[in-house]
């Protein structure tokens, strides 16, 4: 740790300000250049699907009067049949039926169900349950897909969808998980069902009619995304206003304004990095933004609390020296807290996938920028505002 008992915050204040302005300017520039954010499905109407390429092992059909439903969970396959009023359930545990062949035999034993075996050697534990499950069985056969090793390149996948026009494709996870995320805008006169059908048709031509599983399917209508944006902005503004009032009451006006400006800075900084790194702007981004607001506010308050305490104790030292001293005194706490939070977040940023991983990455960026703003920017702002207010209680004598 530092051996000195001050951090030259005020000396560095012009440097701090310039760094923030340069970075934020870069952010604005990147937003202009890229033509806006890489908006997630929540914010941009359209269809978003996560699709895994997986071969069909069995095809199951049912011919009978009962309402027959097949569902797949992590360790079992269940067939539920409902008649005029009664329910009969058959549970096939994968531990008892380890291969697709075993499953086929057991399913075939249920009256009315016919099974066509395409590959009987697949492992039951690899059965995938996606969009369309639990499936209602009928005359038209339903394919059961199994996760298998093999690779499908993103180019191959993209080519399969090329007829649909402007489709965005991303890989999810390792290349051998063969999973892709696609995004499709709403076209004139299309709706959710027609978009889904178009995607299924296009993929069917390349990978076989049932050769893929739709793990997740999100459809967002145009009105929904507009409401989400306005409600998010409203929520953040109300939160900031209330925090301003609280800090104003507990501290002084200069503290409150500096804290809020530092928070707005953190929000803009995170948006800057989201734009620079082309990360997706989704509803979890809002959650990350809010967390960082809470977090860097926490940091700023701890430091401000120290500044207030020190100015009370050593009024003759002047604001400048007191700020430098307070930041130093809080430093090991600030670093330690940020480090532990970073440690808790990093496993998610590394191992998780999808939304939660994006959340963790954005959080990590926010944490670093929060440490910077609460230690350097917020105290500098406090210094400027206090100086500008002629009625500061403690005159800056040290200068």
């Amino acid at each position, binding site marked *: 740790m530092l051996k000195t008992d001050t951090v030259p915050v005020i000396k560095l204040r012009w440097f701090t300000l310039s760094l923030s302005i340069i970075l934020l300017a870069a952010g604005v520039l990147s937003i202009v250049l890229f033509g806006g954010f890489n908006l997630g499905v*929540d914010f941009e109407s359209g269809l978003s699907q996560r699709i895994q390429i997986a071969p069909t092992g069995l095809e199951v059909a049912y011919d009978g009067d009962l309402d027959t*439903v097949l*569902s797949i*969970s*992590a360790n079992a396959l269940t067939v539920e049949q409902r008649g*005029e*009023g*009664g*329910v009969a*359930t058959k549970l096939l545990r994968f531990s008892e039926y380890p291969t697709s062949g075993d499953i086929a035999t057991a399913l075939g034993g249920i009256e009315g169900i016919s099974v066509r075996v395409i590959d009987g050697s697949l492992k039951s534990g690899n059965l995938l*349950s996606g*969009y369309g*499950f*639990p499936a*209602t069985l009928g005359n038209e056969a339903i394919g059961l897909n199994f996760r298998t090793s093999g690779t499908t390149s993103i180019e191959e996948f993209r080519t399969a969808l090329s007829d649909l026009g402007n489709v965005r494709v991303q890989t999810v996870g390792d290349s051998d998980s063969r999973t892709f995320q696609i995004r499709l805008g709403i076209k004139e006169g299309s*709706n*959710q069902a027609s978009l889904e059908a178009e995607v299924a048709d296009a993929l069917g031509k390349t990978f076989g009619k049932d050769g893929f*599983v*739709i*793990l*997740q*399917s*999100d*459809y967002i*209508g145009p009105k*929904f995304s507009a409401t989400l944006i306005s409600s998010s902005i409203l*929520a953040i503004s*109300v*939160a900031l206003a*209330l*925090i301003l009032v609280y*800090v104003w009451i507990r501290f002084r006006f200069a503290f409150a304004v500096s804290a809020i400006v530092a928070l707005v800075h953190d929000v803009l900084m995170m948006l800057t990095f989201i734009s620079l790194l082309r990360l997706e702007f989704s509803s979890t981004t*809002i*959650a990350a933004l*809010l*967390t960082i*607001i809470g*977090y860097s*506010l*926490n940091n700023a*308050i*701890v430091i401000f*609390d*120290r500044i207030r*305490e020190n100015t009370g104790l050593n009024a003759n030292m002047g604001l400048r020296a007191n700020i430098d001293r307070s930041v130093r005194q809080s430093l090991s*706490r600030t670093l330690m807290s940020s*480090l*532990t*939070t*970073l*440690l*808790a977040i*990093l*496993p*998610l940023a590394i*191992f*998780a*996938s999808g939304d*939660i991983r994006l959340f963790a990455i954005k*959080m990590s960026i926010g944490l670093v920028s929060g440490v910077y703003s609460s230690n350097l920017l917020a105290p500098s702002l406090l210094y400027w505002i206090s100086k500008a207010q002629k009625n500061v209680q403690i005159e800056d004598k040290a200068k």
Partner: protein
Amino acid sequence: MKKRNRLAIVLVVVALSAYFLFPTIKWYGFVPQEVKELATGSNVQIKEYARGQATRELRALKDLVAKNADAPLPSEYSFLKSAAKENYKAMRQPVPKKWTVRALFAGFYNEQNMFDAIESYHRTRLLELKALGNKALQLGLDLRGGMSILLEADVDSYVAKKGAPASASEISQAVRQDIEILEKRIDQFGVSEPMIRLQGSDQILIEIPGAADPERVNSFLRGKGSLLFKMVDSELSAQLEQYYLANPGEVYTETGALKQPEFLPAGKMAAGYYVSDEYGIDELARFVVIEEEIGLDGIHLESATTATDPITGRPVVNFKLDNLGGDIFYKLTSTNVGKTLAVVMDGKVKAMATINEGIRSSVQISGFTAEEAADLAIVLRTAALPIELTVSSQQAVGATLGEDAISVGLKAIALGFLLVVILMFAYYGLSGLVADLALLLNMFIMVSFLSAFNFTVTLTSIAGLILTLGMAVDTNVIIFERIKEERRMGKSDSAAIAAGFNKAFWTVMDANITTIIAALVLSQLGSSAVKGFANTLAIGIVSSVFTALFVSHLVFDAAVGDREGKKLSISWRKK
């Protein structure tokens, strides 16, 4: 406050948390998967299961008594003992010391009495489990798989159909009726009960756990339920009632469906006449025999309303038929004057009325209470929603993806937790372990309060949980750094601890109050994903302040009090 009182408060909080957490542990840890699936079914399904089970077990018991009446009662039927004991007492007979099959049978008035006892046992057990499941921590659709659909009222088509502009309250009223109808359709839907909720004034949010099948959802929205008008055979109905009364074990099949007795001629079928009980479950009132042939299909129905008969003042249901329907209905009613007509929905008789004359398009049925009339009007309307709905957004997650998300989330939490624990111990020594203890307690309190408030755990609430981990450590760090500073100034351990906690108090409060302001605003105004995060964060802040300011403080005081003269271990530096 004395240490003993503080310890008592901590113990009360821990006990309370354990109490809240108990249903979650029991539900996820000790209820077998098959039973869980049964218990998460709709009330109607539970009833059907209990009935089927009762039929099966009554038959098995009858087999037993026929084979060897003096055999000891098998343990799987011992749940019947308590009911039998009460009957013995009511009959003023001594309760048998040894329970044989014969003794059990003697403890019931008749077969019906025994059937009811078995059915009630199974039903009560599942309903209790269902209540337990509702109290346990619920997983969100993104973790367990499922589908959420936001539907929006199609105001334009409503106005076009009506031919006049509609007021906002009128739209909202129609949307409410839609919800009522959709709820009535739940019975036909499947395993888990979907959640249907009004959002704003003209939107309906439907969440269906487990199912990500758009086909089923569409059929649910369209209402595949059948509504039919059929003629009742009164003579055979009376005969059927007699038969069932004499043979209570022959009423249902093993799957809980109504058994068709053999004496019914072809073209006639037995059906149950159901009325809604106070829980909204259809309660079987009696049995009737109806024609298999359909008198009139409900698709010809145009509208149904309730009204009061101007002469008798009794509630009536009016409904209108289209032209073709009117012709069919006229033919049916004019040839069956004096007979009874049944309204059959999904195989259940929901209403019966006597035909007084031939009726064409505008029909009035009377003979119910106001509530029954309103129910019937809803049943009749279920064929069509008052206001059409369009899909505003639809999100579906397959079960596989949900399971992956849970396992990754849990692993990441565990790893993050472990890293934090190690770092705290490495940096703060034994005091770090106190912080780790507080952290552990914090997680425990958080999860238990999440389940007590019935919050749903989603991906974002896992993120909130992890963030709270960091924040809880922070509170301890603020305090520890203060204690270290005070010690550097030369204070004794106990004085440094007292000063450290004192000086850190308002820092911790200010830092956490500002964050909780943000959390509370978000939990009120945010979108649903943000809400999950905010709720977790709010609970986490309260519990982390409690664990740090109260529990850690107590541990420090206790440790220093007992180890006078020894060094406080709060730094990795050897001094």
